[in-house]
């Protein structure tokens, strides 16, 4: 089954991103396809922290890691870290349309 994951916030100690990583690893281990992880709002900022970006890159093979362009603008991020793309909400909608499940980490 094909999943799209969204990380909508960055509440204390990056809990949403941590859970998304745990979910991603378990989903792939069970043979499922995660098409995209969409970082939205404050979570875009946490994706830049090197230890977190590194963890995502280690899992990124075959997955789009997308930083929301509007959120990236707000934090003055011009160039995404290696392995990440910057794109608009349309990229999320498109991935959602091609996925059987969209899971939010808030």
């Amino acid at each position, binding site marked *: 089954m094909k999943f799209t994951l*969204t990380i*909508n*916030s960055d509440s204390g100690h990056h809990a949403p991103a941590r859970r998304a990583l745990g979910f991603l690893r378990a989903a792939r281990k069970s043979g499922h396809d995660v098409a995209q992880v969409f970082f*939205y*709002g*404050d979570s875009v900022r946490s994706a830049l922290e090197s230890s977190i970006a590194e963890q995502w890159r280690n899992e990124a093979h075959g997955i789009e890691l997308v930083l929301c362009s*509007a*959120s990236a603008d707000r934090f003055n991020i011009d160039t995404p870290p290696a392995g990440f793309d910057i794109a*608009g*909400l*349309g990229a*999320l*909608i*498109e991935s*959602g*349309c*091609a*996925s059987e*499940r*969209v899971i*939010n980490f*808030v």
Partner: protein
Amino acid sequence: MSEKHWLFVLQGTPYFDPLVTSGLDAAMAAGAFGQKVSVLFTGAGVLQLLDQQSPPVDSRHVGKTLTSFPLYDIENIYVDQRFWEPFTEQALPLEIAPLAPEAIAHLIASADHVMSF
């Protein structure tokens, strides 16, 4: 892009919760990309539906954003009646359908994807 039914469940206090504008932007984007969009306000999110908001400097006007929803073909606007009841007389000029819990469960079951903010 194919069309799916996206339900946005909006739970944040306007002007005090950063997820509020994220939720509105995401709903409008889904509308702009030709998706079928429903929006449900619940919990503290029902406050987004109040008329007479006075946004702090530098904040986008949530009420005005909502009244532009029909321009994005977002026409199914629901509110959780458990939280809305004390505020009905202060509502934005917008067609808002109050739902009881069973109707909310049905609305959720009718969606392809749910986005929570």
